[in-house]
Every structure is written in C-alpha cells, then in structure tokens.
C-alpha cells in the first residue's frame, strides 16, 4: 500500500485531492500546513508528498528546506509541489530544493495522477528490487 501525504491549507483542495488518491487506490494523509506536514512525515513516513507552497506557519519551501537540512533520511521521498504560484522564481526555488516535480493550480488531475503513478511504479520497482536483493 502506497501512502500519499497531501499538505494544503485549503480544506476543499485537500479533500478533492484525497478523494482522487483514494479513488486511485492509494492511502492518503492530510496536513493543513508545513509544520503539520513535517510532523506527519516524521510519524507516518509517507511514500509520496503533495505539498502546497503558500501556507501559514511553515510554507512549502520552508518544509522542503527543513527536510533537506535536518532530515536528510527523508529527502528521497518524492515531493510534488502543487501550487497556485506560477512564477519561474518559485518553480526554480522548489526544484533546486529537491522537489521531484512542480505542478500548478488549477489542478490537472490527469497530470497529477500520472506523476503519482510514475512515482508509485518507481517505488514499487525499488521495493521489488529490494526484496529481490
């Protein structure tokens, strides 16, 4: 079972994404900001993280930086930034900080789910390879 953590301060967005994830047969976790997200990551070790940028308390960039600096063991978790910020500066900041992908709102579920499916395949392949070893 692949677990996906969805971090977004907008409850409606979160709900819609979670529904889609569940429909795709994935386990979904929710967090309303970066701080909650970090706690969730540390406690549940999700396989994939979908994260907004503009959030109170701790934003997406801060969360990503926090993981890279203080929790390097978590840095291999695929981190998909999903945000309404479309400017190049934010895209570059996110990708440089180690984000696996940068998707913009409004959400294209086909695209989002394709990315997640890609990640899932890679993770499952890794697990299979791990088991084989």
């Amino acid at each position, binding site marked *: 079972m692949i677990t996906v953590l969805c971090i977004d301060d*907008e409850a409606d967005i979160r709900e819609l994404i979670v529904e889609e994830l569940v429909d795709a047969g994935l386990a979904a976790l929710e967090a309303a900001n970066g701080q909650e997200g970090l706690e969730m990551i540390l406690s549940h070790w999700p396989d994939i993280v979908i994260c907004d940028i*503009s959030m109170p308390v701790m934003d997406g960039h801060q969360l990503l930086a926090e993981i890279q600096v203080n929790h390097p063991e978590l840095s291999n978790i695929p981190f998909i930034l999903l945000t309404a910020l479309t400017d190049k500066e934010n895209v570059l900041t996110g990708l440089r900080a180690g984000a696996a992908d940068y998707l913009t709102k409004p959400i294209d579920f086909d695209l989002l789910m394709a990315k997640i499916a890609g990640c899932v395949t890679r993770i499952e392949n890794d697990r299979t390879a791990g088991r084989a070893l």
Partner: protein
Amino acid sequence: MQKDIRITSHVTLVLTLLTAMAAVLIAGFMWMASAKVDDLSLTRQRGFVEHGLDEQVKAVPRELESVTTWDDAVLFAPTGPRQWVVYNLGTWMYDYFGHDRTYVFDPQDALAYVVREGKDIPVSTFLNDEEPVTALREAVRAVLRKRAASADTAQPELNEISATEIVEIDNRPAVVSARPIVPSSEKISLEPGQEYIAVAVKFLDAGVVDKIASYAQLDKLHYSAEASPSYAAIPVVASSGGTLGYLAWEPIRPGLMLIKQIVPAGVTGIAVAMGVVIFLGHGLRRTSIALSKSRLALMRHRDELEETVRLRTAEIERQREELDRLLAQERHVNALQRQFVAMASHEFRTPLAIIDAAAQRLHRTKTVLKPEYVAEKSAQIRSAVLRMVDLMESILSAGRLETGKTTLKPEQLHLAEVIERCCTRQAEIRKSHIFHQDLSKLPGTILADRAAIEQVFTNLLSNAVKYAPQAPDIRVRAWTKKDMSFVSIADNGIGMDAEDLPKLFQPYYRARSATGIAGTGIGLNIVKQIVDLHGGSISVESTLGKGTTFTVALPNKGPFAAISKQAA
C-alpha cells in the same frame, strides 16, 4: 575701499604739505642768507660812505695847506695887493677845491679877508658864521702861543699845526679847517706870534656828496636833515657832538636783488613741484578709486557667482532629492503592484483550482455518482465561486474607494446583528475557529452603510482566522463610549512587528510575518477607508507571536460629516 581712497588723499595732502614746507624752508634760508649778505653789504656801504666822508673832511686841511704853507702867502698876506691875496687864498681855492668860504685872520685875530664863493666880501658882513670859525682860529692860535712860549724842540713844526672840525654854519654842515700861514722854505722866517691864520669852510654840499657817492659807488647818495627808514644813512656828527644830518642812500641789497631774481623761478619751481605732487596724488587717487571699484566689482561678481553656484547646487540637490523620492515612491508602488498582481493571481487561482478540481472529480466519477456527492461538490464549487466574487468585489471596491466613487447609503443598522452574521459566516467557512462574542453593550442601531460595515467585519474576522491558524479562539467584544460604538476583534495568532503597524493600512501592504499566508494586502486598506468614510477610526495593537487586536470605532449618529465632505 573708502579707506584706501582716504589714505591716498592723505598721502597727496602730506606730500603737498611737505613740498610746501620744503619751499618755505628754502625760502627762509634764502631770506636769511640774503639778509646776511645785505647786512654785510650795508656795512661795507656804510664803511665806504664813512670813509668817503672822512676823506672829504681830511681833504680840507690838506687843500688848505697848499695855500698856507707858501712863502708868497707869508709875504703878501700882511702887505701884498689885496686882489692877489683874495684870489690865491680864496677864489682859487673856491674854484679849484670848492672851499665855499675862506677867512684870513691877522696876528691880532682881526679878520683880514673874507672870500665867499670866490668873491671878496667886505669884512663887516662876516656875521653869523663867525663863531665856529673863531673857535678854530682860537684852537690854532692856542697851539701857536704854546709853541712860542717854549723853546722845546718836541713842539710840532709850524706846517703841522691845524685844526679841523665839522660844524653847522647857516644850518648847513660844513668842514671848517684852520691853519697858520707859514713859509714853505728856509728863505723866509716868521717870528712867533706874527702868524696869519687862514680858515677854510667847505659845506658838505652836493659836490662833496657826489664825490663821496663816486667814491662809495652809491648813485643815490644825498644829504638829508632827517633819517628816513627807507634809506640807509650815516649821521654827519658835529665835532662838538650832535647830529647835524645824514648822508643817506638807497641801500644796495644784493641778497634781495638775488632773491628778486630767483623768486619768480623759485615760485614757478615750487608751483610746478606742488602741481606735480597734486597731479600725481590725483592720479594715485583716481587709480586707487578705479582699483577699489574693480575690486568691489570683482568681489561682487565672486559673491554673485558663489550665490548662483550655491543656489544651483541647492536646486540640483533639491531636484535630486525630489527625483530620489519620486523614484523610491515609484519603486514602492511598483513593488506593491507586483506583489498585488502575484497575490491576486494566487488568490484567484485557489478558488479556481477548487472549482476545476471539483468539476474534474464529478467528471471522473460520473459513472458512480451519488446524489450526495454531487451536492457536496456543487457546494464546494459555489463556495469557491462566492470566494472569487468576494475577492473581485473587494478589489473593485478598493478601486472605487480609492477613486472616491463610493457613496455610502446610511441606514439604521443593528450593528450587533451584522457582526453576529459575519461571525456565523466566517465560522461556516473556517470550521477550525471559534468566535467568542460579547456584543451586549452595543446600542440598538447606528446610522451606517450595511454593505460597507459587513465588509469591514468580514475582512477583520477573516484576517483574525487567517493569521491565527493555530489559535482557534477569536474574541469579538463591543462597548459604547459617548456617541461612539467600539468593536474589538482579538486573536492569539502570529502577530506583527511594531515596525509594520504604521504601514498596515496602506494598499497592498502586508506585514512581514504574513509571508506564506495567502492575501492581497487590500483588505485592511478597504476597512480603513470605509471606517474613515463613516467618520470613525480604526486602531491596531499587536505583538509578534502573541496576537493582534483591531479596534473599530464608529459614530452612532452616522457619517453625516463624511457624506457632506464626499458631496463637497
């Protein structure tokens, strides 16, 4: 400047005075020298005149000697022809020597002959001039008697006996000389006491004076009874004492003559020197004035230039500052607008994302759709649309407020109800937060624009929720003071730095602590403008990390002043 000119004038004056003093000194020295020369000259002239007079006096006995020391005279005087005696002893003497009168006395002192001006005069006419003549005759006779009375060889020779005096005869000075008539050779002998005595009178008349003048080389020498101050003179003194008159002449003053000759040249020289000094001084003064003027002009130009440069510099500095200020303002506005555009885009994208996501969800689950799910998604869509409308409204109303196109529609408003409704709506949207309301102290109604007041409290309440994500308690408290209603909305959220507070109500401004939290920066600006339009006020207190409290004050009697201001 004036000082220089004055000094120049003083220099000129001093030089002129010095020149004048030098001239006076030179003139004084020359005057003294000439006076000295004149004195010396006068002494010499006096000496000559005196000597001349002396010579004339001494000449008379010498002349008389020529006819009294003569054998023939001794022989003829007593007995000889009268004509011969008169001619030789008198007339000839008159003609040749100018003896005016000649008297011959016999050994008994009786007058034997009298010749006046060359003419034989009867003896009886001899009257008034007898006395001085007699006196001299007596003097000579005394010597003769003395000689006769003694055989002493030390006695003078006969021809050496004479007496000469200056006397006054007929009020005229005259040289009177007496001699005995004695033989000139050894051939004739004369018994003592047998001598005839001849007396010659020679007036110091024009002839004599001419001779003295000739001797002394003084043309204007003349005899004068009185001394005159304008003439040099020597007194003619009688042998018995007493001044008879004066030999006066116009003194020759070589010094004065020299000065008279020099004076024109000297005066001209001094005048020229002073003229030169004054001319030079005047020139100096003119030059000095010109210099002063040019220096003044130069200084004035320098000052003007400095002033111009200063003014220009100040103007340039002022323009630079103005440009800097405008540029900073422009940059600020640009930054705010960029920020606003970014924020607005984000704020629109979020509800759009919800709508879009919900639509996609409906589409993707269309085969297994349940009515409840459709209802739920529709509600999400409508809520998102409402958000967008609200957002658009707030942006538009901000624009309207900024351009002053908003007009309030005041009505009697139940403020507590409005706030309660706002709280309820917020509670529906943000289920995470609890609104603690204490509105009991508000008055029944206030005069205000319903929509505007709703916007004010919606913005403030949604802010309280937005900036206190982890503090669910929002306290709404109200009270009344005088004619004002106060409503405070307090959260325990992230708060703000004190530096952000003064700028908080500027359009598009967002506190630094708001980073990462969605927002346009126009909400509080709208609140402030609406409250201002109502004649109220809004204040804020905040501590970073502790929370923020906004307090709105609204006049109960409504915004009439504000409206009339708007109308105006």
